[in-house]
């Protein structure tokens, strides 16, 4: 569709974004995107959210995308603008988050001349995007932007970059609408192979100790996938666990839920992984935080793996039955066949399996020693959870101990309500992500569960939250350590703490005030509830400095290099166990 009136490149960008139903754009201006910013200020369809650092724009767009199911859109300038985005792109790549990142570039005739603020953006981002484009002709611009949205959101979602030289932004050209685009090569398969699905139905019907192991792919597939997953799990009566990325796809309040699995997952989830006879993996990728020692991974199970990305199949773990397809499509077919065949769960086998699981549950692996004088970090999350109950709450996190405690003690009943950096493990993700979430859900409660080290990595974004009146709550578990790194130094390096003590942390209350936000500090368990209530009630961004036990460690834990049945449980573990838990082989595994 040609628009009739000629448009310049910058106008084409805005027109394309509007036609893609983009409502929010996270960005930071600069020389190479001035023409686009000049168009932004002259329209009101796309709302621009100014951040303080390009990385913040990237994570904000990730939070936006993860909480809405829509692609997050970013606009940054050339050179440092683009390189500052690299971490967010790599993060989105690892966690399969749809991002469309537009970058300015120096004018085409300057490319390759080491011009001011020039960098090889498509070269630098090639390995951390699903695809990227350098637009050399304004007449390709609209098509490429629409293709970029298509690629970011179809198949396994991921980040894409469209690099737009400044002369292309000024040049006059033709606009085409999104419906005109059919991609030349990229047509991912969403329907699973029916024969494989039939076989999966038979395998599940025959299993005595089946387990659903689900991941972020269920959430990426959309709300229908979570709905179908619930139906399937409840119909069969079998236990379910999930990866960090998959939390919320199945309600944590349900009795069939075993909690998260993996390195800091629950004892019952990991034991069930080890002992099951059928593992039904849906939208997860057998990553090393999940598998532990690969050659001792779930030794007695047949494995079914549903994934939209064929390269996830047999990458780390050999499976017996791969099904390449979109989770919702595959589950829909699976359920129909299951019902057609009128399979009934094997009640006797199920009873035996659940009684085994109940024994593992009885170990109460998340138990921690309560303390009257000092706030235990686990207790802080418990109280936060209780006080957020009954409200529409979205949680983001940074990376470290607090992230694992949040995953263990904050319970999610709905998909798209938990935003965390799983694959890349990006400290500094949480606050900008929370800003993106709050932008999309202005009336919801958005909490970033943070650590004192992580939060400082993108602290500048508090200014963004204040400017845009986004009342995000930054709940800092402040133990004055990089807690997870310290925990590993205790485990691996004879408790020699190297550079993990935060000697000169800022006064977070004063810092909040300096930014025009609210600061709250709590040091005693008895004051916690009141303070959390205040945090929630205040209609402005809050930095909540929750002083917690400095030396608490995150358990249970599968020491690296160990299989699932060799977990360390916090209550039962001695200092000696901690010191000798990881073998020399395990030490190199991180």
């Amino acid at each position: 569709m040609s628009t009739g009136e000629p448009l310049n490149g910058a106008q084409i960008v805005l027109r394309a974004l509007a036609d893609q139903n983009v409502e929010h754009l996270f960005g930071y201006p600069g020389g190479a995107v001035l023409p686009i910013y000049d168009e932004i200020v002259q329209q009101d369809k796309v709302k621009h959210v100014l951040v303080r650092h390009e990385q913040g724009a990237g994570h904000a767009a990730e939070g936006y995308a993860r909480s809405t199911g829509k692609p997050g859109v970013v606009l940054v300038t050339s050179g440092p603008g683009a390189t500052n985005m690299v971490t967010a792109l790599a993060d989105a790549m690892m966690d399969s988050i749809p991002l469309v990142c537009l970058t300015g570039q120096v004018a085409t005739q300057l490319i390759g001349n080491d011009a001011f603020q020039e960098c090889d953006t498509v070269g630098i981002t090639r390995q951390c995007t699903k695809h990227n484009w350098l637009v050399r002709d304004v007449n390709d611009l609209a098509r490429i932007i629409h293709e970029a949205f298509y690629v970011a959101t179809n198949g396994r979602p991921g980040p894409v970059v469209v690099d737009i030289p400044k002369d292309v932004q000024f040049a006059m050209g033709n606009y085409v609408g999104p419906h005109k685009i059919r991609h030349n090569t990229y047509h991912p398969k969403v329907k699973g192979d029916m024969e494989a699905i039939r076989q999966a139905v038979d395998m599940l019907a025959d299993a005595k100790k089946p387990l659903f192991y689900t991941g972020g792919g269920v959430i990426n597939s959309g709300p229908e996938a979570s709905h179908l997953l619930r139906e399937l799990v409840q119909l069969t009566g079998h236990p379910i666990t999930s990866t960090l990325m998959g939390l919320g796809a199945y309600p944590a309040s349900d009795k069939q839920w075993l909690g998260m699995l993996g390195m800091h997952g629950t004892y019952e989830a990991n034991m069930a992984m080890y002992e099951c006879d059928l593992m039904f993996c849906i939208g997860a990728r057998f990553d090393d935080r999940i598998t532990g020692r690969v050659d001792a991974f779930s030794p007695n199970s047949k494995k079914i793996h549903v994934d939209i990305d064929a390269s996830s199949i047999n990458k780390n773990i050999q499976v017996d039955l791969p099904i390449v397809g979109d989770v919702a499509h595959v589950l829909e077919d699976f359920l129909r066949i299951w019902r057609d065949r009128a399979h009934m769960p094997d009640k006797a086998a199920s009873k035996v399996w659940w009684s085994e699981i109940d024994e593992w549950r009885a170990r109460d692996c998340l138990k921690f020693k309560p303390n009257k004088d000092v706030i235990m970090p686990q207790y802080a999350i418990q109280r936060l959870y209780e006080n957020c109950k009954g409200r529409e709450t979205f949680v983001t996190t940074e990376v470290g101990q607090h992230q694992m405690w949040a995953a263990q003690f904050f319970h999610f009943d709905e998909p798209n309500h938990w935003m965390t950096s799983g694959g890349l493990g990006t400290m500094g993700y949480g606050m900008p992500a929370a800003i993106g979430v709050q932008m999309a859900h202005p009336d919801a409660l958005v909490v970033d569960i943070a650590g004192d080290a992580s939060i400082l990595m993108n602290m500048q974004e508090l200014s963004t939250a204040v400017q845009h009146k986004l009342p995000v709550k930054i709940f800092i578990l402040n133990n004055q350590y990089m807690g997870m790194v310290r925990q590993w130094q205790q485990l691996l390096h004879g408790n020699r703490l190297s550079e993990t003590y935060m000697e000169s942390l800022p006064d977070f209350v004063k810092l909040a005030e300096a930014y025009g936000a609210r600061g709250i500090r709590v040091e005693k368990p008895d004051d916690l509830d009141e303070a959390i209530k205040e945090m929630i009630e205040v209609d402005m961004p809050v930095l909540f400095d929750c002083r917690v036990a400095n030396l608490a460690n995150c358990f249970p834990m599968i020491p690296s290099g160990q299989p699932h049945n060799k977990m360390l449980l916090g209550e039962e573990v001695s200092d000696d166990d901690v010191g000798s838990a990881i073998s020399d082989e395990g030490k190199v595994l991180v």
Partner: protein
Amino acid sequence: MSEPEEAIVSHTFSVLVDNEPGVLARVIGLFSSRGYNIDSLTVSETEHEKHVSRITVVSSATPMVLTQIRAQFERLVPVHKVRDLSNTERPLERELALIKVAGAGDARVEALRLADAFRATVIDATVNHFVFEITGRTSKINQFVALMEPLGLVEVARTGIAALSRGPKGIFDD
């Protein structure tokens, strides 16, 4: 299916791609970022009007990794079609080499005699050098180069392997 196959084998992949800027960098980046071996890589536009190029890659790995390589190729956005040519049969593979040999006397005569036996052709010569052009399987070229070594071998340029499947079917007729 569950027993690990540890043996390293060599497979030849044929990949049809849109000939867009950076597509070769994507392929090379895929191999380097995931630690796969490239034993041979050739690329050239094969359908000019459609801007389609054919990439031929030879890689050695375990069967599990070879399956991964194929899947990784398929995820690249500008890829039309991937085929593991070694999956069912030994594919047709040819390589071209240019080989410069300098010398005089018996060595020079022997080089020319061997070239004849290997059906290499002389494409440049003076009284004290030859440049041979030779086409064939990689092993044949290796053998010829080894024979030239004591006879005054100066330098070698090789194209890498071009390959097709046997029989009447093309890459889309799976």
